[in-house]
């Protein structure tokens, strides 16, 4: 049994005063195993954050099931069984906005434990341990969030998430507000914490470069549907859905020679998810659209072990697209270009 099982999740929001529906999530299924990282990628409006909220039980899903350790989730009950409380946590995108400006850092980190009924002494011990784990110096526990840099603020957000030693953390764009060096530090921290604590991550992001680095499996969302899912190494090298191809080729890595070349060009923008027409969600933007995909939702097909795609023409894409992981190539090139000069390396003495 997977740690988290999401089956046929549907989340529709009615629009007040009309009969219209915002169809944010339309039948999404995926699993997260204990201790692994699964990334949900997609553009704004694809439903990533809504899925994260359903998983955490913050909103009640319209249909479908979410099982966490076999127990149904999704806002069915406001109070979950005691054994599950604090087993799941969330890290937000904007660290500054997710911290109470009137709480000192130590209070913020300890807050989940207040809800769990821990004693003051236990709380203080746990807060200090969590702060140490995220590399936050003890003197910062008495600081207010406004006194910290964004990178440190996000460390506070992560400390608050791990203080109850959860088994699953939903990371909702945890690094998108940070500059590149702070982003890299936070990612290293998350990877290290996962090794130490065995926490599973549901990593919600539109930053494919980071996703490639941290996740074992990747699920690509478009307009509330999972269009492709697979092991990160497989999906980045052999994307089979036109949207994944478009997404991967749009990423501009800082190397002028490395960009996925493709004939698949996505036009326009993600449409509004209100009252969706039938057919493939990408139909309006897809260069490979035909009568079949305009009318019918393509079935999910497994094209390689664990690699599933929802497109009628995936075989053509496989034949057309280079089977190259440009992100991997970029990593190799970057290591070569930025390798410390010989003389210095000797001087540093590793």
């Amino acid at each position, binding site marked *: 049994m997977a740690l988290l099982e999401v089956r046929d999740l549907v989340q529709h929001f009615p629009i007040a005063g009309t009969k219209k529906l915002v169809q944010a999530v339309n039948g999404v299924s995926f699993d997260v195993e204990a201790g692994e990282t699964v990334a949900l990628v997609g553009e704004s409006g694809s439903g990533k954050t809504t899925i994260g909220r359903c998983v955490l039980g913050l909103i009640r899903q319209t249909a479908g099931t979410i099982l966490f350790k076999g127990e149904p989730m999704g806002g069915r009950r406001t109070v979950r069984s005691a054994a599950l409380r604090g087993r799941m946590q969330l890290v937000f995108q904007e660290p500054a906005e997710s911290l109470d400006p009137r709480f000192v850092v130590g209070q913020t980190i300890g807050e989940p434990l207040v809800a769990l009924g821990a004693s003051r002494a236990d709380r203080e011990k746990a807060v200090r341990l969590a702060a140490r784990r995220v590399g936050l110096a003890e003197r910062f526990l008495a600081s207010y969030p406004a006194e910290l840099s964004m990178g440190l603020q996000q460390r506070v957000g992560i400390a608050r998430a791990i203080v109850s030693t959860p088994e699953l953390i939903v990371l909702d764009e945890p690094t998108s507000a940070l*500059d590149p*060096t702070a982003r890299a530090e936070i990612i290293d921290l998350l990877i290290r914490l996962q090794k130490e604590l065995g926490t599973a991550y549901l990593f919600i992001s539109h930053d494919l470069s980071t996703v490639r680095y941290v996740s074992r499996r990747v699920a690509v969302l478009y307009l509330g549907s999972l269009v492709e899912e697979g092991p990160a190494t497989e999906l980045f090298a052999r994307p089979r859905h036109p949207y994944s191809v478009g997404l991967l080729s749009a*990423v*501009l*890595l800082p190397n002028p020679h490395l960009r996925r070349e493709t004939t698949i060009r996505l036009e326009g923008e*993600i449409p509004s998810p209100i009252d969706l027409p039938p057919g493939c969600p990408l139909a309006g933007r897809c260069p490979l659209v035909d009568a079949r995909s305009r009318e019918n939702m393509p079935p999910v097909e497994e094209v390689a072990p664990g690699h599933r795609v929802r497109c009628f023409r995936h075989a053509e894409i496989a034949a057309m697209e280079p089977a190259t992981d440009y992100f991997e190539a970029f990593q190799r090139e970057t290591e070569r270009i*930025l390798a410390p*000069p010989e003389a210095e390396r000797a001087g540093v003495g590793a």
Partner: protein
Amino acid sequence: MTTPAIEIEGLEVEFPRYGTAPVKALRGIDLAIAEQEILGLVGESGAGKTTLARAIMQLVPPPGRIARGRVRFRGEDLAGLDPERLRRLRGQVMAMVIANPKSELNPLLTVGQQIGNVLRYHTGLTGKPLRDRVMEMLKEVRIPDPERRYDAWPHELSGGMAQRVVMSIALICDPRFVISDDATSGLDVTVQAQVLELLQRLVARHRTAMLFITRDIGITAHFCDRVAVIYGGEIVELAPREPFFANPHHPYTVLLLAAFSHNPRLRGYWHRQGTSAGETGPAETGCPFAPRCVRARDRCRAEAPRLRELEPGHFVRCHFPVER
């Protein structure tokens, strides 16, 4: 190089502070952009990117001021111009595409009115010819369904469409020089790719020079002819795109690029612990980057380095540049 479209020489901008020395936002910028060239300018928040954009347009918000240096537009010194002439230049021959298009558009005017106003001010065009030209522009920036968008209000536009409207406003008078200030930062990647492609085509077609300001060094690798890095109000490295990415010399450039590495050891080598952006600011004396630099020595803290040409066209401001 023939006469550059824009020439910046020793440009310094200061913001006064109460009771102490002014903040030097720009500390002597030298830069020239050729006709039809796209120059990328990369830097973190607070490095001076937007201040430079404003200083070029002679729009430094008071009490900030240009303390020294000059900006020449096709040989003409902008500082000496009377406000009326300057206003004519802005929008007509030099224009700006800004970030957050949705907050920059006037919510009380339709798309057509906002683009039309600029054109009318600068050309005196009215009536049907005005409308026709605006419509042509909307088609050129590939707004879907331009007839309908002409009468749309800003709140009815998606982010990508709003960005296209802002581009139309900047480009409607066919300017010779365009500054794009973080114009693609809020867009999703597939939309960003379309907007960049469009900009590239428009710039080539109208032979415009462009200063492309961004926080994303990745964009500059695929979109710009030359790349400049700004840190603490100084250009620290400047080179044509190929040598810039194949052989970066300044430790700050290397740090920026290393941030994309998945190898913590490589990243750790170039990054001094606890000195991320926002934690350690630029030094006031000596090299501004010295406090964050893994190669800094006494000389770096005492003496500000000059911009040197290490290879033809490849400029670096560092006493101890990274060489391979």
